[in-house]
């Protein structure tokens, strides 16, 4: 007996199992990031003085991270749409592009942390830096997870592409949803720490 809706969409929800699971996961992630951002907002409004992030943090590195995150989201979506058109060469190129963009984002976040640490600003310095190190560090860990999953689909996952192409396409779509979510979270992080 095969499990229903592993590849085809369920008529009433319009979702297959993996996409439903991914949306549940993203809902949990949204609550997790929501808790971090609301804690940040609570701490910030309660503080007597709060530094301007654009004046003390490395904005250039953060801008490069933003560009990389948006590019990773764009590349993963392009990879999926090319896979839908059975253009496997372009699909692979876009997915490798997403991996490279993700690696650039991870490196940029690490450079930002190391620049601040070199100036003697650590998570224990004040509440602002504690929030900044925590939220950007969590972002970095998520991007590493997205890179790992993209690599998994690109290397051992290619077997699935041959044996069950529709299931593979669905997995690439779910991965794309995760990359979009991460880009959205980074835009929110950038706005919180570097703009407002």
């Amino acid at each position: 007996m095969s499990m229903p809706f592993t590849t085809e969409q369920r008529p009433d929800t319009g979702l297959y199992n993996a996409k439903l699971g991914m949306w549940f996961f993203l809902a949990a992630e949204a609550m997790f990031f929501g808790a971090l951002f609301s804690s940040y907002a609570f701490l910030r409004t309660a503080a007597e003085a709060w530094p301007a992030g654009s004046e003390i943090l490395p904005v250039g590195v953060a801008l490069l991270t933003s560009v990389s995150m948006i590019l990773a989201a764009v590349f993963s979506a392009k990879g999926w749409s090319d896979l839908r058109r059975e253009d496997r060469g372009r699909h692979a190129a876009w997915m490798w592009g997403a991996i490279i963009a993700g690696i650039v984002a991870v490196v940029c976040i690490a450079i930002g942390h190391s620049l601040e640490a070199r100036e003697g600003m650590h998570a224990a310095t004040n509440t602002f830096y504690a929030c900044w190190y925590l939220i950007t560090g969590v972002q970095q860990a998520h991007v590493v997870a997205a890179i790992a999953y993209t690599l998994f689909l690109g290397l051992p996952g290619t077997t699935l592409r041959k044996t069950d192409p529709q299931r593979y396409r669905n997995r690439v779509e779910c991965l794309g949803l995760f990359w979009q979510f991460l880009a959205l979270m980074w835009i929110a992080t950038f706005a919180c720490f570097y703009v407002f």
Partner: protein
Amino acid sequence: MSLKAFHILIIFVSIVACCAYGMWGVITFMREGSVLSLLSGSALLAGGLALLMHGVIFYKHAEEDPWL
């Protein structure tokens, strides 16, 4: 929500962010004369335009594929 819809939402948010930060850079240049602000602001505005073009092309391709 499909990847198409979520991607278009991300593109929209990114365009708004690029335009806002780009304008911020240009205004900073006009106020303080910082060339770096002008360069980064212009790059962000150009990035916003590129994202708009990508969004339109992606939407047109997606319209041709009923699954997307």
